[in-house]
């Protein structure tokens, strides 16, 4: 047992304590709050790096406490274990969170409610650590729900804005639908395995019937779909952009939304036993990747472009999982965390600089904000899959694996890649090139905002070369570079970039004419998903609930109760004058009744 591993619990408790501290002293010591808050992710990052240096354990259980224990034994434990997979996640979470806190020091300066903001970030770090280092499904579920709550709190940070307040609720409720799937998966495994630690579940998995394994895997997948905003539960993520942009970078791009991918990767001994579950995962990933990329083509809000891009890229990861390549999915998770956090922070820098999120009110920012511009270009290239940037390698590996699993899905992913290059080139030109169309005075942010961009850009440029190392660390298979796939995807990327660039030059200010106005409106609304949910789910639930209250509860259930009381009173009317409504009379009756009762009781008591 390594020394580092023994202190796994500090990954949760240190950020938790800092969250409490920030909340308590945040008001009087406002200036020092970011410096205090950054300690939380820093500890997670340091711990992750130390573990990787030392060589993570293979064991999935380092220490645990009985949490819901029982006399009958077989307690439900919560414990921690840092293996290669969780160590990699810790580094991702710690690094991005630390950079986001640093960025926030500049970006959020002057906002009200900052102690709440930084405390929630620390709490998120604690919850995400818990999710990642859990040694079983109980701990994972606790972290899983808590990151969702932090997401709710941070999306709704500007709670006086109705849009932000609504988006927070929408995010929580949509992911909660997925969480019910996860909860049922746990219930099923609990019934059939009797222990929810990973070690026990994975050991028992080969003994379980195929139906149970598939059911459990699919239910886990439902949870993953909710958290990772995959079809059909993707609707909450575009709205989540109402949160502060650094939060979008951390929670809604790099870490929490990737938790679904992590969940499937973590549960691989289960998933790998069910070809049906894998096929469903592949289909969901493919549909989401292409659908969301298409929606990103026509967005006019820079954050919405990135939101749909995130959904789409997570779709690539799910497709990889479905193709059986969880190593490739994790590789893309890591590179995506770097380049998408970079793009989000870049968009934050842009929003900070020109005071608008609308691409229509940007343009020509490259010259005015050179650091943001250069780093953005690196992130955009990585996203588009240009060699030798990070996204090129990880996406290439996914495409290669999916070809093996199902050529049709591979074709769809190639299409999604083309769209990806298109929308990011379009957004890049609209924001950074041609002339400035807005009314503000765009300027670069302070150093606290520039440093995170530079760090993430250097990672987005170089991480692609770490694929083999990563695969070895997490114990997954790593495919060598497939030249044909690489060539094809690079050509597609260049074509997409050129087309997107061209369209952006001719198509503003409306930006939506290219596919025709009606299709464009449909795509811009995320294929009408919100309207559909409104009609098919929300309205029926509201109508049914109202009918349940007025129709059933008041008119039947309560009416029966009241009716029998009226009937009883009618009978009793001849006997008493209880309806006088006189409280003193009631009191007398009650007192007399109590005395009579006591007398009766003593009488019975004596008889025995």
């Amino acid at each position, binding site marked *: 047992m390594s020394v580092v591993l023994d202190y796994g619990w500090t990954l949760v408790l240190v950020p938790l304590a800092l969250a409490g501290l920030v909340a308590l002293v945040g008001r009087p010591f406002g200036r020092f709050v970011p410096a205090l808050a950054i300690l939380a992710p820093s500890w997670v990052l340091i711990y992750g790096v130390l573990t990787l240096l030392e060589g993570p354990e293979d064991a999935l259980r380092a220490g645990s406490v009985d949490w819901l224990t029982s006399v*009958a034994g077989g307690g439900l434990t919560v414990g921690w274990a840092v293996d290669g997979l969780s160590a990699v996640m810790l580094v991702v979470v710690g690094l991005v969170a630390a950079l986001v806190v640093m960025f926030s020091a500049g970006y959020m300066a002057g906002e009200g409610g900052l102690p709440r903001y930084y405390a929630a970030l620390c709490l998120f770090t604690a919850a995400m650590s818990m999710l990642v280092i859990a040694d079983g499904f109980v701990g994972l579920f606790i972290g899983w729900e808590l990151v969702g709550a932090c997401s709710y709190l941070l999306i709704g940070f500007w709670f006086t804005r109705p849009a932000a307040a609504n988006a927070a609720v929408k995010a929580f409720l949509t992911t909660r639908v997925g969480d019910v799937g996860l909860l049922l998966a746990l219930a099923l495994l609990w019934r059939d395995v009797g222990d929810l630690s990973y070690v026990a579940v994975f050991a028992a998995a080969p003994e379980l019937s195929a139906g149970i394994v598939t059911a459990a895997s699919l239910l886990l997948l439902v949870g993953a779909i909710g958290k990772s905003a995959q079809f059909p539960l993707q609707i909450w993520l575009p709205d989540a952009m109402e949160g502060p942009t650094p939060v979008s970078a951390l929670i809604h791009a790099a870490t929490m939304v990737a938790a679904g991918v992590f969940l499937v990767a973590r549960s691989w001994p289960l998933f790998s036993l069910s070809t049906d579950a894998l096929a469903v995962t592949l289909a969901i990933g493919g549909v989401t990747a292409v659908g969301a990329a298409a929606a990103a083509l026509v967005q006019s809000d820079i954050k919405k472009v990135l939101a749909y891009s995130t959904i789409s890229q997570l779709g690539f990861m799910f497709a990889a999982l479905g193709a059986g390549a969880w190593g490739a999915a994790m590789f893309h998770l890591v590179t995506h965390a770097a380049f998408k956090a970079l793009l989000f922070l870049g968009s934050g820098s842009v929003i900070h600089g020109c005071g608008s999120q609308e691409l229509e009110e940007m343009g020509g920012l490259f010259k005015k904000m050179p650091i943001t511009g250069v780093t953005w270009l690196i992130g955009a290239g990585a996203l588009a899959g240009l060699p030798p940037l990070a996204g090129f390698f990880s996406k290439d590996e996914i495409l290669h694996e999916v070809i093996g699993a199902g050529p049709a899905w591979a074709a769809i992913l190639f299409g999604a890649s083309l769209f990806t290059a298109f929308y990011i080139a379009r957004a890049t030109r609209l924001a950074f090139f041609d002339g400035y169309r807005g009314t503000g005075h765009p300027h670069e942010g302070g150093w606290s905002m520039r440093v995170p961009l530079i760090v993430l850009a250097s990672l987005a440029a170089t991480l692609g070369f770490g694929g083999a190392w990563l695969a070895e660390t997490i114990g997954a298979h790593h495919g060598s570079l497939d030249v044909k796939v690489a060539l094809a995807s690079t050509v597609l990327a260049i074509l997409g970039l050129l087309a997107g660039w061209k369209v952006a030059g001719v198509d503003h200010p409306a930006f939506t004419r290219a596919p025709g106005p009606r299709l464009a409106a449909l795509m811009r609304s995320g294929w009408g998903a919100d309207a559909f949910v409104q009609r098919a789910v929300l309205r029926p639930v509201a109508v049914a609930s109202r009918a349940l209250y007025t129709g059933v509860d008041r008119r039947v*259930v309560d009416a029966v109760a*009241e009716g029998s009381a009226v009937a009883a009173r009618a009978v009793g009317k001849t006997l008493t004058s209880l309806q006088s409504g006189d409280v003193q009379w009631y009191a007398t009756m009650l007192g007399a009744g109590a005395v009579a009762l006591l007398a009766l009781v003593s009488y019975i008591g004596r008889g025995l």
Partner: protein
Amino acid sequence: MIAVELLILIPLAGVLACLLAGRVAPGYARVVALVATVGFAVALASLAGEGIFSGEPVQGLRVAQEQVPLWDLRIDGLSAPLLALTALLGPVAILASWNVEERAAVHHSLLLGLQAAVAGVFLAADVVLFYVFWEAVLIPMYFLIGVWGHEDRRHAAMKFFVYTFAGSALMLVGILISVFTIGATQIDSLIAGRVALGEPMLVFWLLAIGMLVKLPAFPLHTWLPDAHVEAPTAGSILLAGVLLKMGGYGLMRLAIPMTPASFAEVSWVFAVLGGIGIVYGAAVALVQADLKRLVAYSSVAHMGFVLLALSTGTERGFSAAMLVMVSHGVVAPLLFLLVGQLYDRTHTREIARFGGLGTLTPRWGAALSFAALASLGLPGLSGFPGEFLTVIEGFGAWSWPVAFAMPGVVLAAAYNLRAVREVVHGEVAGEWAGIKDLTAGDLLPVLFLAAAIIVLGVWPRLVIEMTGDVFAALAAIIGTGV
């Protein structure tokens, strides 16, 4: 141990002291009442050395037992957590009604009388004594609602009284049948002699219906929203916090061990009613226009979890039921306390009239958000352990049908977050500009309950360790098949 009797005697003495103090000066009454509730808590805490908080049974005074017919008190693992809850909520109720002006001494003495009666229910080891306390609870509650309640208090008080009294009348018949057939009044002796019962199924339902009304279980719940909406804040706190727990307690103390085979035969009814309650209570809570009525219906949903947990008949299921009960016993009082504090300031509970209170009253807004997250079962807070255990144990017992209750989990998030969205978030409703945020005095009971919610959420074993042996024994009784 004298301390066991003190749990009844201290609040009873408090009733007298409170009334006397009120004659001297109205302000003294609340101080005396607070002292009495703290005294109750101290008396209970003094028994920690006897091991009540690790589930050790402790008998009341032997002398009292010998001298007074039917007087037999005992604390065991089943009653300890609920007595702790009663001790916790006593001071909270008094602090919550610190500003009551109208006949304050009588109000506070009724609260103390209520505490004495509830403690009696949880302490009685004799079924007749149990019944006497059970009914005695109704009297102070009736007056709290009927005198200090809101607009429609008379009707609500009467409905509360008649409805639950009708339920307990059936329970009395069940008790009398058991007592006369078995020839004992001690609960332990009744359970030991249960084979003598000729019609166990009849006895089970007679006992259970009174308790299901109290819980309350769907469809016997409609007295609850009316009682809550009309009750004064302290009344709602004790009603939700401890009175409802009498239902679950009674089932586990009496109905289930008295007639375990009958229970096992019809436990599916509990599961069905529980499942309906979870979804129904949440759905109905979602469309309430009155904030207090919303909280009341959320109680129906939470008690649905208790029923579902009980229906498993397993040790873990009973633990889950107790965890849900204790959690609800701190979360619902916090919600009612906050709603009461809002009502004191605005004289309305209509959700549509609020908005943006997070800006106007940030402390109150933060507290309501916290309580809402606790109520929807967020891990780390008290609601999660019990509901989680209910679902996984329920699945073990009933398998896939448990999924039918799952919409309730989503709806629970919906009605809680809707309340926060409408009341705390959004733009400021101009009507309430100048409204005062919580004072330090207001915050005291809020923080007290919030701390309990966190402690129970992080370390549910506090409760599980108290109840472990009792529930293992209860599951074993069911296992015997008679």
